[in-house]
């Protein structure tokens, strides 16, 4: 399985996801500079976490202006699997590949800690190795992860099982207390309507080796590997 990691100025989890992809797929991902308008054909495009363009103005707002994003948008629309983590999720919404917006955390502070997520869609190419309703442990690290969209969009997301992950407590309850950043319906990650684009705020690439504190992030990459190599 071939993958590409898009590197924007200010990306800072690009190496982390590169390492995770290399480790799990066994193939070195291509690192693509934001200024390039074309890159080789790949099975997966990954938009890493970080602070593209400093996250000045709004998180993820400036990345869509870069040459590479035109190509990313085109390929994502053509059905190429596209994964946005943290800042990558923010970029995907700003680029219009996913609906809604990520606003400042309700508590206004940056949050970095392990959180519990409930897997609410275990059939997508990104999540098929998880059990439906499984509670997993993943770190978050963001200032703007408060998911917002209009009511119609929310209903569409809910009705079509497009909410991949929700913040929850240990028992899997997506409670108000477990909602770390004020996201609508505890949303932590969503899929596009075709299911080939996933954006999520937590960082699965930070939990792939037990010494990092667990391996719950591995399954996401294993899901992708399974889905894309069998396809």
């Amino acid at each position, binding site marked *: 399985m071939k993958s590409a990691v898009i590197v924007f100025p200010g990306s*800072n989890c690009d190496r982390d996801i590169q390492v995770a992809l290399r480790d799990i797929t066994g193939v070195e991902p291509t690192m693509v500079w934001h200024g390039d308008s074309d890159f080789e054909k790949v099975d997966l495009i990954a938009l890493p976490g970080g602070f593209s363009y*400093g996250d000045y103005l709004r998180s993820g707002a400036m990345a869509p202006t870069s040459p590479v994003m035109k190509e990313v948008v085109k390929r994502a629309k053509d059905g190429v699997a596209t994964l946005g983590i943290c800042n990558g999720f923010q970029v995907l919404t700003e680029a219009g590949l996913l609906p809604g917006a990520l606003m400042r955390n309700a508590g206004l502070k*940056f949050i*970095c800690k392990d959180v519990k997520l409930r897997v609410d869609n275990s059939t997508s190419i990104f999540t098929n190795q998880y059990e439906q309703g499984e509670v997993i442990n993943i770190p978050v690290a963001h200032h703007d992860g408060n998911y917002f969209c209009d009511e119609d969009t929310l209903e569409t997301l809910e009705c079509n099982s497009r909410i991949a992950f929700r913040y929850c407590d240990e028992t899997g309850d997506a409670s108000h207390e477990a909602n770390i950043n004020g996201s609508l319906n505890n949303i932590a990650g969503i899929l596009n309507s075709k299911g080939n684009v996933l954006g999520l705020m937590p960082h699965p690439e930070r939990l792939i080796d037990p010494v990092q504190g667990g391996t719950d992030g591995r399954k996401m990459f294993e899901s992708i590997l399974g889905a894309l190599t069998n396809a």
Partner: protein
Amino acid sequence: MTKQEIAQEITSEMVAEHGLTEDEFANIVKALGRDPNFTELGIYSVMWSEHCSYKSSKVHLKKLPTEAPWVICGPGENAGVIDIGDGQAAIFKMESHNHPSFIEPYQGAATGVGGILRDVFTMGARPVANLNALRFGAANHEKTRHLVSGVVAGIGGYGNCVGVPTVGGETGFDASYNGNILVNAMTVGIADQNKIFYSAAAGMGKPVVYVGSKTGRDGIHGATMASTEFSEDNEEKRPTVQVGDPFTEKLLIEACLELMSSDAIVAIQDMGAAGLTSSSVEMASKGGVGFALNLDHVPQREENMLPYEMMLSESQERMLMILEPGKEDFAKAIFEKWGLDFAIIGEITDSGNLTLSFQGDVVADIPINSLVDDAPEYERPWIKPLSRKPVDMDELEKPEDYNKVLLDLVGGPNLSSRAWIWEQYDHMVMADTLKGGRPGGDAALVRIHGTKKALAMSTDCTPRYVEADPFEGGKQAVAETYRNISATGAKPLAITDCLNFGNPEKPEVMGQFAKACEGIGEACRVLEYPVVSGNVSLYNETNGEAIKPTPAIGGVGLIENYEDAVSIDFKTDGHAILVVGETEGHLGASIYLKEIFGLEEGEPPFVSLGQEKKHGEFVRSMIEQGHVRACHDISDGGIAVALAEMCMAGDIGANVADESDSLSFQAWAYGEDQARYIIAAEEHCAAKIMSDAAIMGIPAFCIGTVGGKKLEIGNRISIDVADLKSAHQSWMPNYMAEENKKS
């Protein structure tokens, strides 16, 4: 300032405003053979300021041990460098940003992080960890919350964006910092030993190149500000505050590292305090060469900037380097790719002078050696600090409820959880922070990318002790980092320091400084744990009130295989709990006396460096042999607090016997004797640990077992771990939630 102002004659008021004494000015005139002009006066004033010249501290710093076989580069360069095997080096330093952070906590702290990062990557290292040692005023002081909130947000705002994990530090509250908070930031980086860059300029005619952000009128006189006392109205006379741009810093790191992978760079230096002045003077002086700079070529953000302003500006995110001739275009392309300014602003000369031209005129021409070698060096008078009387504990009424004592300690301002702080820091970016080395333990552990090795890092200082006895306190600060690192299984290798003190012109303060340095030096010698970099921050006084002497120590160690590392959390029912080291019940200058009785009295605990070394080595060898399941050093709050911390971290109880024997319970449980550790181990391992200890003559006693939901210590303490946790975790968030409430 106009051009006329620049050309004006220098008056004695101007000299005084620049923080120079009459004698110092006379020396300038002597060195130049004429009166300086305004630009030259500005340059001398910053180079001769306390901050840049270390004029009061140098004589004492010279006594610190700086060598060991694994030291590649000690103090004097931008940061210290040590050998960590496999051709790799760890490069690190700690630095203060106290005054700016008091004036503007967010930007002050943020630019402090930016500055220390540059000190480290300028030497060719990729920064891999940030730490911060913070001291705030009393919790109930009206400014404290605002300062905590701004400083923490600033450190996070910068470090998170740059993408370097902030993995540790320390945070204290004490009234002596009400008017002078301390913000000490430390960065640790990793480089290949054959790719380390130094600052000495060499090679006649080679180009002097400026890269990074443009120069504005930011923070002119920052270095002089850091070299005077605060008074109430200082806050009004704010110099322009520097604003940090972490995005540009991130680009600068990547661009510099990219250029460094070639052989284009002869020398490189960041522009820190006193910006272009100190960077060019230091590079030239180290290389014994002259610099001719054309200021018209300096990238400028504002209009009509004058030489004085350009030379003294402290605009952030800038570097100065000497390139190999012919590599200019190659280098320029890299910086342009990263969207950064790149300008050739001058060349190396053999004049030995710093010669500045501006709009066709020579506006300054100063012998470099006079700026550095002729800088004042003072052996300021000092008096030996008075020694304190021991506290007579029998005079104090014993607490009735030891449960409440423990809850008050772990749930009080100084020992409560700092999660509120570190959760605002991305402490996992780069994906190399080890689970057991996340903030909250003894030392932070960050794996060296792509290897089995990990760095262990900790910052420590107990100002209570240093105030009570600067010599013992200086020793203790070093010993505590040594212990924190050893407790993870890593071998402590070297330290950096940040020596925060009051006004050096006061003999008592100078006495604290001198004795603390002696103590630090002594500890470094015995522990084979040299000082490789550091920073001094003096004049931490407001209206004549000095801070508690605070020599913050940042220690760095190495563990060969991170799978061997242990963390502080108790793991499983049935593990035996051992105390390594002698418990004598020393309560003088303890946190117990301070927080429970409101007393800051007595002598601090004596630090037997021989024992520190022996016990540290022993604990490390037990960890390496795989006998240890959890380990924590005993420091503030003694055995009781250490046990509580291990229970809370593991979410599991412990049953411990009251082993106070001839000591009173309070002395046994809360005494702060040094060179001690608590270890949890399976029973057969515990037996092995105790028998090995006996052979080596090291005290090691089994005091109980892990298990249950409560921490029970004899019949005096019995508390649900959940209650301990709730007290421990709620203090900071509750306190900070009151941020805007009227006080």
